[in-house]
């Protein structure tokens, strides 16, 4: 009889609430199957089981908040006991099953979703708005941030709240948060999870739950401090001329429907994954106890994704180096959609072997950030920062021209590699992106 426990879906997660059971006692479940929807401070996350079996009983009813590690359900074998199924106390760094890699962005099961996200509920609390009295205008009656803000504004004089665009509101809400801070999130938390950090002893537990922003801030701060304390970073960067790559991509996309379109972001990730697979010193983890690099057979790419509510998370595209360009685009689209819909799965939050932070989409009209120097997420050994694709004056075949350029930065761990290795990695990336035919050859 295996115990299915409340998983830790981030280092700052201490408890979670069962929002939904997707199975009933007597149901047969398979490893990787989504069995419950769990609400954390940050997001609603679909949680998978890590064993095959038959659901014996559901211990924790819907709506109940329990600490990480609490037994939620028992899974019976229904078959001769195999080599004891590991209790799922923590999200295990299991090799993600192939199909989980490239899921279709599925339509949101709106009927079964809660009517507001944790972030919206948090906002409602801050603004003293009772959600019972708010009419949801989002999809499926979901209560949106704007609904809460409208409800908060209503009882007061309307002039006090000038009408602002959602963009302006969001910018204002983000105001205090520099963009660079966030890429780290879950990867960071995964890193924290790997290093048993003592419970913050100096902090007296306040009666109300601490605001998620504070604990995320603290989690990021701790990991970044640890990274800068322990990892001797070196940094390299290179401008890559994307003229040919973008022309190739445009031609490839032109007659496809929008559903099959591949964005430049996917092409860049595809190239990074390929280059990392060729240069194993930039991929994997560092084992501090053994004082040695632990290379990885595959590239599990952690990718920073912006949340519309503000902030970022960095879910993982497992085995990104084995995916074709189209598969990677599909995986990326799925990740982004799930992140934005607050429907990340446990398998999206497995530890990565390399993190990419992109300041990719510049607003139209703005030149965009040129270079981005990432901080390595421990225990990883490198991180890639991608600037916005910008028009730059470039010398090309002896002539000066204006061409689209992306600056690719590498932060790497000097305990594992030297600048020369890093330079080779960036040269490989440059080669891939300036020879797009070879890059896409696997697909067509």
């Amino acid at each position, binding site marked *: 009889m295996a115990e299915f426990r409340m998983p830790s879906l981030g280092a700052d997660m201490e408890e979670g609430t069962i929002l939904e059971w997707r199975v009933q006692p007597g149901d047969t479940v398979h490893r990787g199957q989504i069995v419950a929807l769990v609400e954390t401070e940050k997001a609603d996350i679909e949680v998978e089981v890590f064993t095959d079996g038959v659901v014996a009983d559901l211990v924790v009813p819907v709506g109940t908040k329990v600490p990480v590690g609490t037994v939620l359900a028992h899974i019976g074998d229904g078959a001769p006991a195999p080599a004891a199924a590991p209790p799922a106390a923590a999200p295990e760094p299991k090799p993600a099953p192939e199909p989980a890699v490239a899921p279709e*962005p599925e339509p*949101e099961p709106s009927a079964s979703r809660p009517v507001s996200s944790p972030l919206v509920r948090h906002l409602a609390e801050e603004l003293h708005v009772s959600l019972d009295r708010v009419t949801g205008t*989002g*999809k499926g009656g*979901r209560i*949106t*941030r*704007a609904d809460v803000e409208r409800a908060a504004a209503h009882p007061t004089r309307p002039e006090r709240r000038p*009408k*602002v*665009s*959602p*963009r302006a509101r*969001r*910018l204002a809400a983000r105001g205090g948060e520099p963009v660079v801070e966030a890429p780290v999130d879950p990867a960071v938390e995964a890193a924290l999870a790997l290093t048993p950090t003592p419970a913050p002893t100096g902090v007296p537990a306040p009666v109300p739950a601490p605001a998620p922003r504070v604990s995320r801030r603290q989690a990021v701060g701790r990991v970044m401090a640890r990274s800068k304390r322990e990892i001797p970073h070196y940094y390299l960067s290179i401008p890559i001329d994307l003229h040919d790559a973008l022309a190739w991509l445009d031609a490839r*996309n*032109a*007659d*496809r*429907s*929008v*559903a099959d*379109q591949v*964005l*430049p*972001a996917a092409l860049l990730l595809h190239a990074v994954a390929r280059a990392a697979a060729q240069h194993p010193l930039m991929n994997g983890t560092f084992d501090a106890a053994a004082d040695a690099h632990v290379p990885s057979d595959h590239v599990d790419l952690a990718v920073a994704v*912006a949340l*519309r*509510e503000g902030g970022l998370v960095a879910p993982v595209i497992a085995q990104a180096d084995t995916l074709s360009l189209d598969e990677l685009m599909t995986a*990326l*689209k799925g990740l*982004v*959609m799930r992140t*934005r819909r607050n429907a990340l799965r446990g398998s999206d939050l497995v530890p990565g072997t390399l993190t990419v932070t992109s300041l*990719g*989409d510049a*607003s*139209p009209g703005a030149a965009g950030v040129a270079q981005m120097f990432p901080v390595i997420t421990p225990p990883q050994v490198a991180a890639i920062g991608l600037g916005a694709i910008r028009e730059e004056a470039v010398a090309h075949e002896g002539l000066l021209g204006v061409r689209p350029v992306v600056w690719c930065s590498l932060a790497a761990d000097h305990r594992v590699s030297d600048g020369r290795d890093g330079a080779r990695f960036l040269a490989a990336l440059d080669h891939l992106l300036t020879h797009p035919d070879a890059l896409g050859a696997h697909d067509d």
Partner: protein
Amino acid sequence: MTDTPARDVDAMIAEAVGRVAPDADLTSVGDDDLLTEQLDLDSMDMLGVLEGLQQLSGLTIPERDAPKLATLAGARAYLIARFA
């Protein structure tokens, strides 16, 4: 094809945008404003909006037409023309 009143097209656009950005307020967007700018959509979001429109309308929208759907007025005109 039966004619598609502008308000059906508007509803389609609202639905497609809502799928990607449930918190987006279309009433704050002028007809000729860029959707990406006014609603703070990135290229991935905008792709989602176009995919939504494709599903809801049953039309196949080739990528080369995407720039025509960058504003509300543009999207409206494009969809009505394709339905005509």
